[in-house]
């Protein structure tokens, strides 16, 4: 439905929820997290791609002659990202289907995410979706930015020190060194973000966490302005210039539709030839 309302401007990103209390809200058990992700997505893919589905699985009642509506816009399901902090199974899932892989990135050091992303790229190639460096990778990141670096550090430190995820633990300086967190000027954010491709290869999407650590709304809105005005345009330009020609853009509704139309046209043509 959202895909229709948004005229195709929808990607779906899936994450499993990483704390125990989340699962019982949906009547589930966290120990089934991976099997649930695998079964549910396998079903979702069929519901999108087959008009009438007969299905039976472990986690929900069977479906008989079931049609999910509305059907995907133009018959093209949204592009899917599988998000993960630590599970190799999710990288494997993304690679198997040739979907995008989104590495959370923000909570753990890059050494871990290098292994996770390399696994996804290697398996993407293994499953025949194209060379490893053409796999579709997204990364998280988190920043606090002010025009002046010292102002950014001074203003953000009390929020950092008391933040739910990393508060009362490592110092701001330690966490900045170990994770993608950047606290500083627009240029510092740009410099650090441009380094990511050196570890992970050329990638397609960079997500920034901006509303974090309990920042007030007004500050978050200022952050969005600074990011949009001074950081993102430079990053787009620089990353486009650095990305080799053979590395694809992340798919959009238009490109997925064009690819589907091409397949249909080829099939029609082949049929014509047979006749």
């Amino acid at each position, binding site marked *: 439905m959202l895909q229709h309302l948004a005229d195709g401007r929808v990607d779906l990103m899936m994450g499993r929820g990483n704390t125990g209390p989340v699962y019982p809200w949906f009547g589930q058990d966290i120990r089934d997290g*991976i*099997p649930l992700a*695998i*079964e549910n997505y*396998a079903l979702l893919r069929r519901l999108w791609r087959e008009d009438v589905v007969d299905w039976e*699985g*472990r986690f929900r009642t069977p479906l008989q002659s079931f049609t999910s509506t509305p059907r995907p816009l133009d018959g093209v399901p949204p592009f899917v990202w599988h998000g993960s902090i630590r599970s*190799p*199974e999710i*990288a*494997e*899932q993304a*690679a*198997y289907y040739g979907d995008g892989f989104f590495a959370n990135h923000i*909570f*753990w*050091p890059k050494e*871990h995410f290098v*292994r*996770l992303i*390399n*696994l996804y790229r290697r*398996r993407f190639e293994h*499953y025949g979706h194209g060379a490893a460096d053409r796999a579709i990778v997204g990364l998280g990141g988190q920043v606090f930015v002010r025009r002046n670096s010292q102002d950014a550090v001074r203003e953000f430190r009390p929020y950092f020190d008391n933040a739910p*995820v*990393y*508060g*009362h*633990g*490592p110092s701001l300086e*330690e*966490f900045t060194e*170990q994770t993608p967190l950047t606290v500083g000027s627009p240029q510092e954010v740009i410099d650090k973000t441009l380094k990511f491709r050196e570890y992970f290869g050329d990638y397609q999407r960079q997500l920034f966490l901006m509303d974090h650590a309990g920042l007030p709304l007004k500050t978050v809105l200022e952050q969005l302005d600074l990011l949009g005005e001074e950081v993102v345009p430079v990053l787009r330009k620089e990353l486009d210039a650095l990305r080799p020609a053979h590395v694809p853009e992340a798919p959009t509704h238009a490109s997925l539709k064009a690819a589907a139309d091409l397949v249909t046209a080829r099939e029609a043509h082949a049929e014509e030839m047979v006749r």
Partner: protein
Amino acid sequence: MSSRKLAVVSAGLRVPSSTRLLADQLAAATLRVLREQGVEASSDVIELRDHAHDLTNNLLTGFPSATLRGAIDTVVEADGLIVVSPIFNASYSGLFKTFFDVLDAGSLAGKPVLMGATGGTARHSLALEHALRPLFAYLRSIVAPTAVFAASEDWGTDGGDGRALRERIDRAAHELARLIGDRHPDSPLDPFDAPTPFEQLLAAR
């Protein structure tokens, strides 16, 4: 035979520390026994005090700092492990437990371990059996039958000559050396190098 590596984990807090002293004596005895058996061996000591902040940070953030990562790798990759904690309130110290709490599940499975503990009086000695031994049983380590407790009197006070402690250290060292000698280290499959193929994940349901 290739050279064997011992990792020695000491949770002593002071300098000098009787916990570290016991750890060093256990390590020296084990290395001596191994060398007598013609086994080349070396040891690395991890002082948990040096990692106290990083251990707390690891609990909070879920990942170790690079320095703590190095210490964890030393322990996980060792052929044998000597662990020594002071006894606090009838159990291992919180710092000692925290180190083992941040290891990945299964890290110490099959690992030969020699346990030691220190305390003010010998009344605390059974903490080794009711606190440390169940911990390493849970971690599926292979624990030497002899655990070594050193109380104040073992260090030469109260008219003691320390012989009883030395004999116990020696017995424990022989046991650990045998466990290390018997060990055929298997390298567990790395899920990032050898993932479960997706067809298998799909079929598992």
